[in-house]
């Protein structure tokens, strides 16, 4: 299926429902693009291929959100981390399965895919989150 999908953010989220965390590789310059993009910002190439990511990495920074927009307020306090994946690109996401005070920069985490839409209404994307590895 992934061969037919355009190299877009929407495709990135749709593929989560198939159990795949995917980036795009620009065949012209080799750059890994997460999220996928239809045009490479480094070389302007548009010949892309899908690359499956292992979904593991380390916490590069994190925060504990106490004041949130209305849709997230009931979930506070929650941790959002910026994770450097082993492939070298970063991905932000929720970090669960650890007490906020125990989160550390450098901590190894792995991605967990949630195939059901994360919210009502647009965008009805599946989502992902991180857990300590």
């Amino acid at each position, binding site marked *: 299926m992934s061969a037919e999908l355009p190299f877009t*953010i929407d495709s990135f*989220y749709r593929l989560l429902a198939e159990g795949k965390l995917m980036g795009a590789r620009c065949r012209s310059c080799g750059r890994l693009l997460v*999220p996928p993009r239809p045009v490479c910002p480094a070389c302007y190439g548009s010949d892309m291929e899908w690359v499956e990511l292992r979904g593991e990495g380390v916490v*590069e*920074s*994190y*925060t*504990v*959100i*106490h*004041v*949130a*927009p*209305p*849709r*997230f*307020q009931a*979930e506070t*306090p*929650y941790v*959002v981390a*910026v994770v450097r994946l082993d492939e070298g690109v*970063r*991905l*932000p*996401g*929720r970090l669960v399965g650890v007490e*906020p005070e125990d989160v550390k*920069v450098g901590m190894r985490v792995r991605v967990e895919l949630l195939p059901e839409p*994360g919210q009502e209404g647009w*965008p009805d*994307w599946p*989502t992902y989150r991180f857990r300590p590895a």
Partner: protein
Amino acid sequence: MKGEPLAAVVSAGMTRFGKLPGFSARELFAMAFKEALDRCPELDPRRDIQAVFVGNMAGEGWEHQGHWGPICADWAGLVPKPATRFENACASSGAAFRWAVLAIKSGLVDIALVGGVEKMTHRTTQESTEFLAFASDHPFEQFHGLTFPGLYALMAVAHMHRYGTTEEQLAMVAVKAHKYGALNPKAHFQKPVTLEKALSSRVIAWPLKLYDCCPISDGAACAILVRPDLAKRFTDTPVYVIATGQGSDYIGLYEREDLTTIRATVEAARQAYRMAGIEEPVKELDVVEVHDCFTIAEIIAYEDLGFCRKGEGGKMVEEGRTDLDGDIPVNVSGGLKSKGHPVGATGAAQIYEMFLQLRGEAERGRQVPDAEVGLAHNVGGSGASCVVHIFRRG
């Protein structure tokens, strides 16, 4: 030639910042404009002003209202002059100002009204949190519950981890801001705060606490900008714009090479210093307004503007080097932290402060003695845009 005037500010106006119940954005804009008119009796607005440039971030959210250019022209009594709204998140009116400078420099416009406005406090904090987050990446930041304070918290944790910056140093930025805000009759908060109180305030997005965050405010500010050779027709003491710079960065914080640097600031400053011929900012700038939407943002701004080496911003505030009597006074207006941050108005309010400081008209206790050259630094969102202007007294 370096440092030649590009345009001149001949008047400026600003409402008080804070909770201003019952006033909508258009009315605040008109009130700021009225002050600018009162300061400049030689200006006949309908005869002289040829174009209106307005900064507003997200009136669509807060007031269910877009199309701010003509609305502000209308409430300023300037229909049918051309009027355009600029949106660069919290750098909206800094951007509006830059494009007014360019319009004047182009020769197409001789005299412009530039301003900014935001009306925020009538909505809940959660609603404002959502509207402010519009300026961040939706699919990977907003969608996962990241907030505007959350993004700066990510920068803070990275800065603390790499450079040893402390929560106390962050709080010192707030203490300094409130010290000067207490002396500014237009500031949202006009009282000092102790380090202990700042450190013990409730967590908003760890490690940022309430006193690390600027408030949600209402307000408007504006300036009358003219061709340099026309300045003396309106005032004996114009403030000249001698440099303008603007830069961009990746919208997603997670895509940036370095979480502890705002590259848009580095780029905007590089352009502006070059245009002004400034090589040693700490020695050559007398007064600076930086975009301290969060305390960490001020520390990062010191570094990105070249006031100190990377990683030493925390030490700089701790040593008092950016106090009124320090090497380079920063945010003696109270900054966004204490003066308030009606987002679309902030860039214009920084220029209002430059106008006061470089004419020696700021209040006692926060006026930089004999200030000649100043810099205003206005950042959009989590740093995907930045505008820097440098001013010199006439």
